[in-house]
């Protein structure tokens, strides 16, 4: 996975805490100016990976190359990257100005330069005029902006962000997501972003790295990850899915839920057990007599833009999203177009999520 001209190369990273494996063989490269997101459930190792890049943790095994040179022995305060921490980690004994100036003063920059840089930063994060405020008098969103300014003012080549929006409410999150993305494009620096929120990852990133149990599950663009999940874990974690056990009868023909369906996948062999993934919005409800499957609507929920209906077919309960509602208790037919049927290899038995 490593690549010569990448900015950061992680090669064969292993890390355990006591007996638990946090990272189990991570290979990953990060390009210059890339917005890359490490996405996964809590405990998947994404924060540990970020902390290894930042220098706060050292791996048991593996290499971390920055512009081709191994920097594992470089202490965090000498690494050319900065971090925005989970709960901001602002210095409560300093005001906004001194928080942002912290890194610059350590570099012994002239006072005038510090001032102009801070001014520019406060403009960037839309906090002009807050210089003298103490940080504990700021709202969560404002503290977030100061934490970003404090990191960015040092003009790092890479900014590491550890669930930076986790403590904000939904509306503020959406705003900040946009702003962060704009900032990243405007400044042209690399962002390594950690989150457990798949929507956030899909909106902001150039590349999404889906992780689980210390391993990378899939790397790709948001669109590719959403449309072509490589395994049931990714499919389930990214968006909602119906995942059924099936059998690949032959290329482009799969059987599941008691029916046979045409699909577009091939190369799985014949009569092979597979997982079949179908997004709820790809399940079409039709008349009882024209569907490929028939079932009964058991519940209906209005979700704002669409209805979410559960449809019982045999012993599997399908999740269906549709803008037209079928009342609970009605008999319906289900059709799925071949293009929307995603076939993946069976997960090893370990996985049950």
């Amino acid at each position, binding site marked *: 996975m490593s690549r010569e001209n990448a900015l950061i190369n992680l090669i064969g990273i292993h890390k355990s805490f006591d007996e638990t494996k946090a990272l189990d063989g991570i290979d990953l490269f990060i390009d210059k100016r890339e917005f890359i997101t490490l996405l996964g459930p809590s405990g998947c190792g994404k924060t540990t990976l970020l902390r290894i890049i930042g220098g706060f943790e050292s791996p048991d095994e593996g290499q971390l190359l920055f512009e081709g040179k191994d920097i594992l022995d470089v202490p965090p*305060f000498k690494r050319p990257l900065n971090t925005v921490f989970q709960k901001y980690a602002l210095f409560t004994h300093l005001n906004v100005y001194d928080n942002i100036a912290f890194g610059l003063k350590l570099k012994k920059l002239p006072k005038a330069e510090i001032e102009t840089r801070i001014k520019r930063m406060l403009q960037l994060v839309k906090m002009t005029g807050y210089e003298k405020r103490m940080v504990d008098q700021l709202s969560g969103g404002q503290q977030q902006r100061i934490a970003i300014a*404090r990191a960015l003012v040092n003009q790092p080549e890479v900014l590491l962000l550890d669930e930076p929006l986790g403590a904000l409410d939904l509306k503020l999150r959406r705003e900040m997501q946009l702003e962060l993305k704009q900032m990243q494009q405007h400044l042209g620096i690399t962002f390594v972003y950690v989150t457990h929120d798949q929507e956030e990852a899909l909106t902001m990133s150039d590349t999404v790295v889906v992780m689980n149990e210390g391993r990378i599950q899939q790397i790709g663009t948001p669109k590719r990850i959403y449309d072509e999940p490589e395994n049931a874990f990714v499919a389930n974690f990214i968006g909602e899915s119906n995942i059924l056990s099936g059998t690949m009868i032959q290329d482009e023909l799969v059987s599941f839920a008691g029916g046979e369906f045409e699909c577009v996948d091939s190369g799985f062999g014949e009569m092979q057990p597979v997982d079949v993934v179908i997004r709820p919005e790809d399940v079409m409800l039709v008349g009882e007599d024209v569907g490929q499957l028939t079932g009964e609507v058991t519940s209906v929920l209005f979700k704002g833009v669409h209805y979410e209906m559960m449809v019982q077919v045999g012993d599997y309960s399908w999740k269906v999203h549709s803008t037209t509602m079928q009342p609970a208790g009605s008999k319906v037919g289900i059709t799925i177009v071949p293009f929307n049927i995603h076939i993946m290899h069976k997960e090893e038995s370990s996985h049950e999520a």
Partner: protein
Amino acid sequence: MRKFLRGGYLGLLLTFLYAPIVVMIVLSFNASKSRAKWGGFSLQWYQKLFTDTAILDALWLTLRVALIATVVATILGTLAAIGIHAMKKKRANVLMSVSYLPMTTPDIVTGVSLMLMFVFVFGLVYRVSVAIGHPVQLSLGFGTMLMAHIAFDTPYVLFSVMPKLKQMNVNLYEAALDLGCPPLKAVRKVILPEIMPGVVTGALLSFTMSLDDFVISYFTSTTDNNLSMIIYSAARRGIDPSIYALSTLMFLAVLVLLIIINKRSALENVS
């Protein structure tokens, strides 16, 4: 009605607590030495107090011991807290349990154990010094009392600082490193300001414990007396009204100190 009854109860309690103190204050101004009759207002016991070199020496010694012990204990204890906080959980737990030990050990046992240790070490020093031909006979005094005070003060600093460290955002120290601050500087510039309230509490606690200590000083010093030791021996000898004068002054000192502390914390609460 309820408030009245409760107030009455607290009033009775206050009477119980203050009657002896008030009596002492009144008697400190009594011209007559007898406690039977009021011989008129006089400051003679205060005069006597301020010319009593034994008491003045003890006061000076008490202040010196308390001050030096507080400074050393605060530094030792704060560093210890930062160090233990950075350790793995298991080791940290062991150290914290051991630190708890001197706080549960009765003063008298702490006192005799330190005395045993000092006498034991002094015996070794004496034997070695005789062997090399320069006999050195050390005795229990200022130095040993000071070391004992540092030993019993330090855990209090540790236990005052530790909660502040635990409250601190775990990433704060890392944030400083991340911004280019070397580790030692990060401790000074970021961790120390965060835990300052705990350090101050620990220092104040140490200072009052040292000022007030009797039992441990009593066993670890024979040549030098602190104020508590002077009071104890005066009390054993019988009544001396200049001790009343001393009590009155110390009561006033504590009162003023508490009022200042209270005002300060009240102000902090407002702002």
